[in-house]
């Protein structure tokens, strides 16, 4: 009771009963219930059209979410993820329009993302700053810079290949390249978090930074690395987003950082660090997105959609409370 976090690893101690199972997988259950409810209310919900839509919209915020989950596990946040995505994505469009080749463009975008990630990480470790407030500052900064450079005007004249990055159908009617990229990122990062030193260091630093440091982990270097990887993922999300939009939109992806954080937390991550995992975060973002998608399908007033989205965040964390206290 005093330390709810402990419950995470202690399931071994318990005989597994059905109530336990129910609560452990509560997020998954909420997700399934949502899907069933929406498909009963509207036959359009499970239509190919809508599923296709859903899968094409999720990757951007989804990739940002898994990046931010990794950060949350390390005990840090990034509010500037959306701005990094917009910056890198717009830069990519700019280069693509200038005629650079696909590998150059994508690499450049990722390097830009890593650069901003480095700035975030560097300031945080060098000046022992709270990541929340620092990235709030860099969010304004990065966004302001890209808006100033472009004068807020969309970069146009996107070449075909760039548009196809996100929008190529793969086999079936409702799977597109960006969905595949998202799936690849999820699989890769799940592996990294569970099976590599880098991933386990994230958990170590997030759960007890001092213990990690005294175990010989260079936590400063590690945190910078994590921010760089997260920045790279945000940049990737930005490239896919701009490809989807067919322009370089410097004002795009505002608030994605906060939203992604909400998704990660619904999926089991915690601000205090050390807990959370990628599949959980994916379920979290799916829950939020399916909900928003369902509301749109029902054609609800857009303000009501906003209110209800807030409601689902509240409900999700309350359900999570019961999971934690199972």
């Amino acid at each position, binding site marked *: 009771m005093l330390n709810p976090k402990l419950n995470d690893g202690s399931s071994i101690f318990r005989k597994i009963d059905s109530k336990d199972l129910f609560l452990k997988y509560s997020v998954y259950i909420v997700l399934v219930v949502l899907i069933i409810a929406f498909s009963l*209310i*509207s*036959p*359009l919900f499970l*239509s*190919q*059209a*809508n599923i*296709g*839509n859903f899968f*094409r*919209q999720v990757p*951007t*915020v989804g990739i940002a979410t898994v990046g931010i989950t990794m950060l949350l596990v390390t005990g840090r946040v990034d509010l500037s993820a*959306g701005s990094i995505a917009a910056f890198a994505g717009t830069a990519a469009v700019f280069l693509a329009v200038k005629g650079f080749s696909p590998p150059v463009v994508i690499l450049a975008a990722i390097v830009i993302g890593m650069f901003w990630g480095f700035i975030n990480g560097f300031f945080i470790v060098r000046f022992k700053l709270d990541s929340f407030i620092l990235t709030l500052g860099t969010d304004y900064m990065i966004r302001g810079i890209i*808006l100033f450079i472009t004068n*807020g*005007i*969309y970069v*146009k*004249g*996107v070449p075909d290949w760039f*548009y196809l990055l996100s*929008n190529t159908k793969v086999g079936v*009617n409702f799977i597109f390249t960006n969905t595949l990229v998202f799936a690849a990122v999820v699989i890769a990062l799940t592996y990294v978090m569970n099976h590599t030193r880098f991933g386990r260091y994230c958990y170590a630093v997030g759960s007890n930074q001092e213990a990690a440091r005294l175990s010989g982990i260079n936590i400063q270097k590690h945190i910078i690395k994590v921010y760089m990887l997260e920045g790279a993922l945000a940049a990737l999300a930005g490239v896919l*987003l701009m490809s*989807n*939009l*067919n*322009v370089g*939109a*410097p*004002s*795009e*992806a*505002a*608030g*994605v950082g906060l*939203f992604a954080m909400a998704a990660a937390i619904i999926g089991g991550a915690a601000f205090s660090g050390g807990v959370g995992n990628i599949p959980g975060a994916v379920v979290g973002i799916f829950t939020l997105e399916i909900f928003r998608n369902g509301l*749109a*399908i*029902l*054609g*609800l*007033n*857009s*303000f*009501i*959609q*906003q209110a209800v989205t807030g409601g689902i965040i509240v409900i999700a964390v309350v359900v999570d409370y019961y999971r934690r206290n199972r």
Partner: protein
Amino acid sequence: GCSGSDSKSTSNASGSDKKTLYFIPIVDTGAYWSPMKKAAEERAKELGYNLVFKTSPPSESQKNEKHIGFLQEAITSNAVGIAIAPMDPDMFDRKVKEAKDAGVSIVTFDADVKTKDNRAAYVGTDNKLAGEELGKKAAEYLKGKGIKNGKIALAAVNLTQTTMTYRQEGIRKGFEGVMGADAQSFSWLEPIQDNDQASESKRQLEGQITSNPDLIAVFSLGSEGPDTGVMEAIKSQGKAGKIYHFGFDYTPTWENGIKEGLITGIVDQDSYAIGKTIIDVMDKIIKKEKIQDNYPVAVKWVEANQIVEYGKDKQKQFTNETK
């Protein structure tokens, strides 16, 4: 609210054998969009169409992606026609082409797409022309007052929107056209962006008024945030009647500033007419009747003292709202 009727019409979609039209405005709220929605819904009902109405909240962080998605959705669910207000000509260009290739007719409104061949018709006000009209009227007004020089400010919700870019361009063109050689003696300040926070445009304009005593005119490029912010800044700086304020689109908020001289005049687009025309054009396309490429809906110049009267007619067109 509007929710009840919408959800019904949507869920009937697959069951009925009525032809389905998609109607995708940028938002469904506010003094501009609301009458448009009402008109479209009424007209579609009269003509026997199943109108699927799609939009997203103003604060939606993935708005553009969502709206492109609505287009895709319309294509996949075999709609016969789509009416869309594209947020950017390039952004929606490809998707509109894909729709055309899939045999769906597209009508654009509010703003057009880049490749005009891909859509059947455009309904609505040309934002450049609307801007030009306002610029002209403003210049004439200032000329009438004998003003030959000074500084001019601009305020918008979001300067990155293409509509805002067009309006800015139009305003300058119209203004310079009327002013002629005198145009040189007017200078334009950095445009203000307030993200629909009236207090932000107010603050920014207060700063500009303080540091530019020769500020003579302000254009607000649309939406209640900057409209209110600009009026209140003029008021708080005691510049009512000294700084002339020109705006876009009728909203009841203007009435706040008429008595005190915080608004000089507006150009208004008849959004109800836009909504109705869109459905009519769709209907013609489906019935294979001849259509025009462009259905311009003229803007109307309304001076401050006529705004109240003008608003009375206008408000009848609003969907069921509290105000």
